[in-house]
Structures are given as C-alpha cells and as structure tokens.
C-alpha cells in the first residue's frame, strides 16, 4: 500500500493498537495489496477508554468483556459476581491492553 495512506491510517488508529505491534502493523500494511484498503476503512476498532469506563462501572456484570467481544469470559464474569469481585479489579488494569490486542487480532485477520 501507498506509504502516505499507511501513515495516515497509523496516525488515526495507533491508539487502538498495542504499542509493541505498531511497527509490525506498519510494515504489514506497506507490504499489503491495494485492494485491502476498502476493508481497512471498514474495520471498527473497539475504544480502550470506553472499555476501561465500562470495566470501572459495570465490570461486576462482565459488560466490559462483552464489549470487546469476549462473550464467553463475559458470561463467566457475570455468573460469578465478577469473579467474586477479584476478577473485576484485575480487569481494571488489564482491559485496555486486552482491547488493543483484540483490535490487533481483528486487523490481522484482514491483512
């Protein structure tokens, strides 16, 4: 893909992706075919900040996990009162990175 388009994409979306994978994503995009561009613009990334807010307010019900697409773990969190409250607290610290990793995996399925 064209370097200018890739840089624009990275500038707009780097907050949704894991820091350690930014360079890798950029290289993969540069090597990707032009036909992927339409698909790239169609991806809707999950916002890590919204995931964190959901985790702080409704983590006990697993709604943060449902939001990022981890339905199975969301149900696990819901039926155990948020892992007896302990899983809820752990997720306050993990959910932003997990969201970015989920976004990265979603991007990798396309390019």
């Amino acid at each position, binding site marked *: 893909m064209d370097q200018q388009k890739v840089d624009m994409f990275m500038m707009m979306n780097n907050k949704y992706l894991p820091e350690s994978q930014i360079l890798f994503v950029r290289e993969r995009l540069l090597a990707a075919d032009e036909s992927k561009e339409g698909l790239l613009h169609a991806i809707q990334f999950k916002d890590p900040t919204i995931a964190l807010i959901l985790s702080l307010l409704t983590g006990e019900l697993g709604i943060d996990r449902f939001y990022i697409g981890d339905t*199975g773990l969301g149900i696990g969190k819901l039926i*155990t009162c948020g*892992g007896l*409250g302990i899983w809820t607290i752990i997720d306050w610290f993990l959910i932003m990175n997990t969201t970015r990793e989920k976004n990265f995996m979603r991007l990798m399925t396309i390019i």
Partner: protein
Amino acid sequence: MSLSRGRLYSLLLFLSACGYLWLYVSNDSSHWGDWGGCWIRYIFGIPCPSCGNTRAVHAVFHGEWLSSLYYNPLGLLLAALMVVVPLWIVVDLLRGSSSFLRVYQATEQKLQRWPYAVTGIVAILMNWIWNLVKYT
C-alpha cells in the same frame, strides 16, 4: 478471533480451581462477615443478577435441585460448567485435540447474534428482578 488454546485452557482451569476453593472456603461463612463475594451487594446493599449462586451450587452438589433453582437458576448453569469444563479440558489436553476450543468459539459467535443476545439479556434482567424481590 478468540483467546489461544493454551491461554483459554489455563485460564478456565484456574477459574474452576478458584471456584472449587471458594465453595470449600464459603462452607464456613462465619469468617466472612458481610462479605459474600459481591461488590454491588457490599456497596449498594442490593443483590446482583448472580447473587445466591454460591448457595445454589452448594445445593446442586447436595442434590437439592429445587432449592438451587430458588436460590438462583444461574447456579445450575454454573455448577454444570464447573463440572463439564475442567473435565473436557483435561480430556482435550490428554488427547491433544482442540474440541473444547472449537465449541467455545462457535458458542461465542452464536451468542453474539442478536436473537440469542437479546434472549440472554432479557433472561438475565428477569433473573435480576427476581433476585431483587427475593433478597431485599
């Protein structure tokens, strides 16, 4: 687009172990005072949709199905998961297959479709209302 096999299996085995440990520890509730394992109940004084699950799972394991359904119908689901999931994972690990992972991913995708999601949300809300009536 889910967790990898190793991470999912180790996480679920760990959660099951924690579940059994909690069941064992919560048998003697005198140590715990007001703390029943639920933030919502502790802070706001109202039960969450899954309050009563510990009692419900205890009741299932003692064969008291009806009282388990009264404590919380989700307890039946939780007890079934606590028995089936670790066994399935151990069998999978011994055989080197990924059948549980495939079923987990397929179920996850199905539950994300709106008819299933809406049914689930309505069921949970109704259970929550029943919990509010029962426990407050």
